[in-house]
Every structure is written in structure tokens, then in C-alpha cells.
């Protein structure tokens, strides 16, 4: 009697998660396996795929553009992930004080994160326009140089990084603020009585207590940064009939942009799959490394 009850509960459990699991299998696991298999073929998406072994992987690394894509993506990750995390931590600590309108500020900081990336990029392109944009007009007012943010290969990736930091920092703030508010007040009180200075309070109490959230944000934002696409894609469109191409595009193309271009413009779906597999490996590797390092600094 009792055993049947337990079995019944398991059945219910599976039934409840079935829609989610089915969804993941059909829309994620399936395509991952499929594109892994396709990465060994030459396939334009329309005619039958032809098995070519590792040729796609070889072609990928021979292509100069792949090099640019990995270089730009790496720079993007190295800058965007730490900066959004530190900035998020800074703002969250400011908001963790007893200030008026805390909720209001929280909303303000979070808003950029829920705006559509394409719309965000559109607004920023207006702001960054070198001749008519607000940013350069302000730089000019205080006598600073006015770079061509959107048309100079030395700056365009940095423009994208600025936009990415601006739109991602709010998410980090909300998560970290929630973590900060869960730190028990009595820890601070007793440390305060013992005469601990503020930086000790932060490093000995605050940081260890919020480290699980920091770890969560670190892994998630690294994964997201490695897959950056939408802002980059939006920045190729300038309103011209033909989007940005050539050396300027090479200065900010990223890995996922390359996958998109190969798959849907050049119709080389096998090659694009190979690149997706490599990116999958890179992300899996970095995430595994982060989980390994986690034991050293994250406290649960």
C-alpha cells in the first residue's frame, strides 16, 4: 500500500516536469545533437548533406575571419563580465543603504535589461553618432577628442561593450541587492562592536555571504557574453541599404555573429554547425573551470 503511494508520487513528479523536459529535449538537446552530426557535413540547408569528415573544422581555423571573431569575443568577455559584476556590486551596495526611493532606483537600474536589445542598440547609435550624437557633443564641450564611435575600427567594439555593460548591469544589481539584504544584520552588529573597519566588514562578512550569488552571476554572464550576438548584429545595420562589411565589420564581428553569417547568409550550415560545436566546447570548458574554482571562494 505504502509502496504504491511512493510510486504514485514519482509518477506525478514526472508528469509535472514532463512539459518542461519534453520542451528541452525537442528544442535544445535534439538540435544540439543534430548540429553536432551536421558539423561533419557540407550542407547548404536545401540539398542533401555530404559527409566531409573534419573538413569544416579545418576550414574554420584557416579562415582569417574566425580569428577576428574569437579575438573580439574574448576581448568582449574579458571586459564586460568583470565590469558589469564590479559595477553591479558597487551600485547594489549603494542601494543597500536606507535611502528614500530604493525601489524606484532598483526599477531604474533594471529597466535597460528588459528593453529589447535591438531598441537599445538603436538608441545608443543615435547617442554615439559622431557628428550629431549627444555623447560627442558633451565630449566636445569639455574639450575632449570626439571619436567616430560607429565607423572607426578602433572604437566600434568599445561602443558595443559600453552598451552591453549599460544594459546588463541592472540585472546584476537586482540579484546582488537581494543577496545583500539576506545577510543577517547581527553579523555586522557584532563585528561593529569588535571595532572592525568597513573594508573588513565587506571582505569578511558581506562578500562570503553573497558569494553564491556572485558565482551565479559570474557563470551566467560569462556564458551570455561568449554568445553575444544581438547588439553586434544591430550595430552592423546603420540604416544603409547594405550593412557594414569589410575591415570595419572584422573589427567587431563575434563568434555567434560568424555562425549566423555562415548559416543564414552564406548557407554553409555544416561549417556554421562546426563553429557552434567549438563554441559549445569553449563555453562548457570555461564553465567547468569556474565550477572547479568555485570551491575555493564560494561559501554556502
Amino acid at each position, binding site marked *: 500500500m505504502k509502496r504504491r503511494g511512493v510510486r504514485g508520487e514519482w509518477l506525478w513528479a514526472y508528469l509535472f516536469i514532463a512539459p518542461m523536459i519534453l520542451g528541452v529535449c525537442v528544442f535544445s538537446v535534439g538540435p544540439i545533437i543534430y548540429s553536432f552530426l551536421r558539423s561533419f557535413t557540407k550542407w547548404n540547408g*536545401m540539398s542533401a548533406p555530404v559527409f566531409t569528415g573534419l573538413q569544416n573544422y579545418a576550414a574554420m581555423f584557416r579562415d582569417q575571419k574566425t580569428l577576428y571573431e574569437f579575438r573580439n569575443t574574448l576581448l568582449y568577455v574579458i571586459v564586460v563580465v568583470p565590469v558589469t559584476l564590479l559595477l553591479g556590486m558597487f551600485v547594489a551596495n549603494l542601494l543597500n543603504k536606507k535611502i528614500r526611493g530604493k525601489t524606484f532606483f532598483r526599477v531604474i537600474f533594471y529597466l535597460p535589461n528588459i528593453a529589447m536589445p535591438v531598441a537599445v542598440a538603436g538608441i545608443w547609435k543615435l547617442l554615439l553618432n559622431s557628428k*550629431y550624437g549627444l555623447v560627442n557633443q558633451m565630449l566636445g564641450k569639455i574639450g575632449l577628442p570626439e571619436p567616430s564611435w560607429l*565607423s572607426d575600427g578602433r572604437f566600434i567594439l568599445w561602443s558595443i561593450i559600453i552598451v552591453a555593460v549599460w544594459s546588463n548591469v541592472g540585472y546584476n544589481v537586482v540579484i546582488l541587492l537581494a543577496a545583500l539584504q539576506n545577510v543577517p544584520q547581527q553579523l555586522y552588529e557584532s563585528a561593529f562592536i569588535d571595532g572592525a573597519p568597513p573594508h573588513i566588514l565587506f571582505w569578511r562578512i558581506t562578500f562570503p555571504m553573497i558569494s553564491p550569488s556572485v558565482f551565479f552571476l559570474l557563470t551566467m554572464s560569462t556564458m551570455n557574453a561568449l554568445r553575444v550576438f544581438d547588439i553586434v548584429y544591430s550595430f552592423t545595420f546603420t540604416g544603409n541599404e547594405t550593412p557594414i*562589411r569589410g575591415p570595419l565589420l572584422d573589427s567587431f564581428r563575434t563568434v555567434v555573429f560568424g555562425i549566423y553569417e555562415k548559416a543564414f*547568409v552564406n548557407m554553409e550550415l555544416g561549417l556554421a554547425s562546426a563553429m557552434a560545436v567549438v563554441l559549445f566546447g569553449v563555453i562548457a570548458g570555461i564553465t567547468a573551470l569556474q565550477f572547479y574554482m568555485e570551491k575555493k571562494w564560494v561559501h554556502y
Partner: protein
Amino acid sequence: MKKMLSVFLVIAIVTSLAACGGGGGSTAPASSGAPAASDGGAAPTPSDDGASGTISFYYWGDEQKSGMESIVALYKGVNPDVTVELTLIPGRDQYYVNLQAALPVGTGPDIMWHNANIADYLDYLVPLDDLVAGSDIDLSNYPQVIVDFYTFGDTLYAIPKDFDTIAIFYNKAIFDSLGVDYPASGWTWDDFLATAQALTNDEHYGYACDFNDSQIGYGNFVRQQRGAAIHPTGDAPVLVNDASMMEGIRFLSDLMYTHNVATPANEITEMPAADQFMGGKAAMLSHGSWMVGPIHSVLGDDLGVVELPIGAHQACQINGLGYAIYKDTKNFDAAWDFLQFLASKEGQAATSQVVIPAFTGAADEWLAAYPSLNLQLFLDATSYAYAEYPYVRDSRKINQIQTDHVSAILTNPGHDIQAELDAAQANMEAALQ
């Protein structure tokens, strides 16, 4: 009670999921269900006027929506038995992504349109020669250059729908304020340069174009040197490093960086040439016939249009659209019946408030829309226009390689043009291997 509720919830979730799954599939059988009767029913002699059922039509571009809807409404009056389901796909790139996914598995449209870049899709289209020969469609009603877009070997794959050609748009207010004569047809590159020089000052440049666009930018200058932006020749699949290509691109580069009379590439990258022109930052603009309406709405009677200047000869780029039928359509009779209507003068004229119909003489509405402008020149341009795209497979891919190299030239003053074109040639040949 709680358990009852959860059972109920699970059932609700599962059935709603099933409904979602079925929803996508059920539209396809609905359209394929009807023709199964005529297909499988031992050939019940389907004649043209016996066409019935539902067919789907895919197209892109919001601006074409009203035209396509009026065509379908008119067709309903001609053959009420056929229902045409229109599907608007917002952008051109998205349209091709959809076709690429749908055509191989047979979930695509029964009838669709294609621009000159059709070579990759021939395997999925019905060859039309025999059908056209046995019908009222007369191909001499359409400009030969557009029929040629869709003819491979001797086989025709689409019926022309509309076309667009390129001309110079100019701002009369700027000409007047500087006392410069309006350009007249028959003007040459030298006249063009002199005019642009007279119009350039601190306020504005003489000329602007989307430099790296072959259709409205550099490609026209190349054509005017008797070359082609990309073109197949007898022994080479493409030829992009010949003298005409060199001369055409160098002319544009010189306009920007030697004579300083054209808006330089970095400024165009940040703001499209058309916007620069409409904002009074450039006195002349090369653009397509589809921009007449939008630009006129800003400049009003200050707008003038004139043919592109003549280089080694008179030339401009042309692109267009054509209607094609999916090879394995489940309702061929209805699709062919609809295509014949689309090809007729009536069917073509229905869209002439937005585009130039391919059917000669069906463009009255378009011509009359802006009486102050000599729009006839866009139609007459078909006599000296060349297709932008090459008639080869993978043309999007090689076009992109081309644009990469041309962008490298035109964004760098003093760049070694010949070396860059040689690299383009090598890369494009490699891509077509």
C-alpha cells in the same frame, strides 16, 4: 480535492501543448487536404477554370502589403473558388531564411516571389516555358532584362512582377541658393564632377551614396565603365578585377577623397546617404525608384530627378521581383491559375501605386503620383539597365565577399585598389569552387 485539481491541471497543460503542436501542422493538411482529391482522384481533368482550393503566397516588405492585398481581392472576383492566403515576412533576409527552411521539407508556400538572386532556388521551382507557351502570357510585355533575370539556359522560372532602376535625386533649393544649373539628361561624369564641386561647401557635400552598395552605390559607376559589379564570363565564374571595375570604383573613391565632393564613407556609415540628402547635408543622391515617395514627402517640390551621368556609356543597375510556383505544390491548378492572373495587366496594375509593374503600360498610377517629377526616366532606364546580381549559384555569398573588399577600398583613402580587387577575385573564385 487537491489531487483532483492537479490531475485537471496536468490534463489541461498536456492538451494545450498538444493543441499547440497540432496547430502548426493542421494548417498544412488543410491546404493539402483539398488538392488530394484532385491529385489522387485518377486525374479528374482539372482545367484552368476548374481550379479551386487554397494556396499560400509568401512575400516580404510592409510597403507591398496594400498592393498584394488588392491583387488578392481582385483575383477573388475572377476566380472565387480559389482562396489565396497571404503571408507577409517582414524583411528580405528573413524571407530567405524562411524559404531555406521550408522549401526542402515541403512546408513552404505554393507561390512566392524572387528577386534577381534566384539561382539557388531553381530546384524548387516549376519551369514555366511550356506552361507560358500554352497560355495567354506574352513575355514581350515585360522588359527583356527582367525576363533574363529568371531565365537559366533556356528555362524560365518566374514571371516578372515589378522592377526598380537607379537615378540621381537632387535638391533644387541647394542648386538655387548657389546659382548652379539643374542637371540635364545626357550629362557626363565630367559634368557630374563639376556640378558636385560647385555644390560642395561647409554646409553640405555635392553628392552622397551608400558607397558599399552595388545596386545604388559603386555598382552604377562600374556599369558606366562597361563593366559589372560581379559578372560571369566565358572562362571565369566571376570577373571583378578588370579595368572597368577599377575605373568605376576609383571614380567614387576620388569623389570622396581626392575632390572631397562626396560624403566620405565614415559619415555614410553613421548616417545613410538618403538621410544625409533629406537633411540637406548633400545636394545630390543616387538611389532607387522606390525612394521617390519617401524623399518627396520630405523635400516636396524641391526634389528633382535626372538620369545617372554617362561614363564610357549610359548604364544603371536594375533589380526586380518575379512570381514563381513551388515545384511540389499540392494545388498546382490553383497556383497556375493565380499566376496567370498575376501576370496579366490587371494583376500587375493593381500594385502600381507602390512599385513600377513589370508589365509595359501598367505603371500609369505610379507615373501620375508625382506630376512634378519626370518619373518616366525610371521606366526608360530599362533600355540601358543591367542586373545587379550575377546568374550564378551562391551569389549572396560571393556578393558579400565583393562588398568586403569594396568596403576596404572605399573606407581607406589611398588604398591600393587593384591589389584589393585581385584579392576579391581570388577569394570569390575560391568560394565558388
